[in-house]
């Protein structure tokens, strides 16, 4: 890109299953004000505003127009993009392009979902093709359950491994003041939770959350002038995947997969040979426990079939050598349109050393954030503390 782009501020709402105290405009505004406060900016200093959310999840059309007051978009240039669960990262990518283009110096990126307002079941079943599979749709849980049976059959992992991921996420979330599910649970609690779709239990899945995230991006000069701890966007890569062919659930597939394809391209951009050496912390988009273990493998953090060993050995714990989702991740907070942006913002907080209770112990120079959505789509974002690193 033509200009370097920094995250110079960000903020998030308190995420919860119920936010009856705010309407959608006010929810978004809570994150926007937090981001402006963090960046010590006023809305007048923002050049353009970009919004991402899951269009139709709230049963609303043209949400960006309605939310203009809360976004601070009145009289400003801006736009709205929707790409599914990846959209929060897509908006940051769009924001980075806006800054790099030289047309804008400061960009406010916002993602949100107020899941309690829409009819999530009805809208999720609408993801299936209307004439092929909508009547049979097994929902997201069915999809990840098939990934789980495939994973267990292929690599010999057990339900306990899933439970370990479930526990790690919620215990980490307890240290994150904004997280939704802060649960003091044990592996046994996870294994005893209600079965949804074998072998996926209640605690193996992400919740439905209400929340928003906002991130402010700027060019190098602006970042240098007014930000003490800019975090640099070093590389981003997007991969969508064809309709109907959802091969991620077949963990032994030899077809090129979105996650590995995208990681390979991103690593090539950065010259990464070993992601475990290169990145100090990972914030990944795991709608279900099993997806986290598959992400480890697809990102090259371990070999095929070794993901469950990483969780078993505590390698990805907050105080482990390669912390993954110290924030609690999507398993603890899933306000869909914000979830992928939260991964990037949490990764930036780790680099700044500002993650508070869930700051990882070691030095964090570089971080990787992933997104997930649509029919196996991702956006990967690599962040660093130093531009010349």
């Amino acid at each position, binding site marked *: 890109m033509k200009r370097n782009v920094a995250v110079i501020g960000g903020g998030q709402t308190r995420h919860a299953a119920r936010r009856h105290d705010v309407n959608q405009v006010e929810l978004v505004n809570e994150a926007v004000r937090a981001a402006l406060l963090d960046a010590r900016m006023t809305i007048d200093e923002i050049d353009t505003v970009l919004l991402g959310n899951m269009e139709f999840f709230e049963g609303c059309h043209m949400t960006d127009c309605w939310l*203009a007051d809360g976004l601070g978009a009145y009289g400003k*240039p801006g736009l709205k*993009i929707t*790409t599914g669960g990846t959209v929060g990262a897509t908006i940051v990518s769009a924001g980075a392009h806006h800054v790099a283009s030289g047309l804008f110096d400061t960009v406010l990126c916002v993602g949100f979902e107020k899941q309690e307002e829409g009819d999530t079941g009805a809208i999720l079943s609408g*993801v299936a093709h209307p004439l092929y599979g909508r009547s049979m749709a097994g929902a997201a849980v069915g999809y990840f359950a098939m990934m789980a049976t495939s994973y267990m059959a292929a690599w010999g992992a057990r339900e306990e491994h899933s439970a370990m991921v479930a526990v790690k996420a919620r215990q980490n979330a307890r240290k994150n003041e904004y997280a939704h599910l802060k649960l003091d649970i044990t592996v046994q609690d996870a294994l005893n939770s209600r079965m949804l779709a074998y072998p996926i239990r209640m605690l193996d899945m992400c919740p439905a959350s209400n929340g928003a995230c906002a991130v402010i991006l700027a060019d190098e000069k602006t970042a240098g002038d007014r930000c003490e701890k800019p975090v640099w966007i070093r590389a981003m890569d997007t991969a969508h995947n064809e309709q109907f062919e959802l091969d991620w659930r077949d963990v032994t597939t030899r077809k090129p997969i979105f996650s590995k394809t995208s990681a390979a391209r991103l690593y090539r951009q950065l010259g990464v040979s070993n992601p475990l050496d290169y990145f100090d912390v990972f914030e990944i988009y795991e709608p279900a426990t099993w997806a986290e273990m598959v992400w480890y493998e697809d990102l090259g953090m371990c070999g095929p079939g070794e993901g469950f060993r990483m969780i078993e050995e505590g390698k990805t714990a907050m105080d482990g050598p390669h912390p993954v989702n110290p924030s609690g991740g999507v398993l603890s907070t899933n306000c869909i349109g914000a979830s992928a942006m939260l991964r990037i913002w949490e990764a930036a907080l780790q680099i700044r050393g500002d993650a508070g209770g869930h700051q990882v112990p070691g030095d964090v120079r570089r971080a990787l954030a992933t997104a997930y959505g649509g029919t196996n789509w991702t956006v990967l974002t690599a962040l660093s503390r130093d531009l010349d690193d």
Partner: protein
Amino acid sequence: MSERVAIAGVAQTVFKPKRVDANYAELAYEAIEQVLDQCGLTIQDDIDNSITCSHDIWDGQTISNIGITDVAGGHLRNEEKMAMDGSTAVYYGAVGILSGAFECTLLLAHTKMSQTDRNIVNNDAFDPIYTRKLGLDYTSAAALQARRYMHRYGISPEQTAGVVVKNLGNAVDNPVAHNRGVFSVEDVLSSAVVADPIRRMDMAPDTDGAVAMILAGEDKARGITDTPVWITGIGTCYDAYYLGDRDLSECMALGRAAQRAYSMAGITNPRDQIDVIELGEEFSYQELLWLEGLGVCEPGGAAALLESGFTRRDGALPVNPSGGLLGGVPANVMGLNRVAEAALQVMGRADGHQVGGVKTALAQGHSGFCGQHHCVIVLQGGKEGR
């Protein structure tokens, strides 16, 4: 890395009231196949970014770009869905190329208005807390804007009907338009009242179709075509949301979007410096109001301009020589079609409805009801594109 962005190719399906034979992916592919052939490009070798433009609620599928990922070349590649009017896809595509991240971008917009009910769809654009239960839609909202505008400036129904007569007449010579003919002001004024003062003929009709476009950086564009159309100015702007928040006879957002585009393109006097305008008149009055927002004339002055013949295809500043949206263009596709028609004018490829001597063209699109978000694109050909 490009300092300049060009439109290197444009393809449109024929617009029809209903395409029972094709689903939206097939419709989209008709335009994509055409534009790739025309430019001699393939997805694998040439296209590094795809921006699609549609809405879940129109498509009847949650995350509806799932349904066009394949045809838009999104498999294992970059694809994003602009959930706004298609003009903003051009804006965003240009930003992507200027950023240095992409070299050659496929833009696509599609909608099948025939598959659902526009008023039910558009009612969901009204906020659920204060306005949706009133049953408002884009037509009733536009009628409120039309009356406010016409009242404030003393515009008559005969004058707004003049827009319809001009545009449907222009559409006769546009091979992709389906709503066209030689009509009189009396014909328009005798069509059924839909939402007073808006009559049936004052409205863009339900339409199915798709538009595809190739944007490229300078080097790439020169390799594709001898007639690159340079995007020299872009601007967008949000207005206030509620109908009662603003005086509907004014268009602050369009004014600001245009100002941004003009200052990039070095336009100080749009009326003199622009040779043709393709703008988004979903309703006839909007052609007049938007012309004022674009600074082509003073507020309230567009009707007189129309009556003087200034905006006719053979006038000093032709407006919607294609027939505009009244000629029949699907929702969401509207803005990409506006830019496509403006680009065809600059290329000299506007078969049947070409205007002479076009060096600088302007396209405008808007999202939401009554112009809540505007997008302005300035295009220039050859030497002017500097």
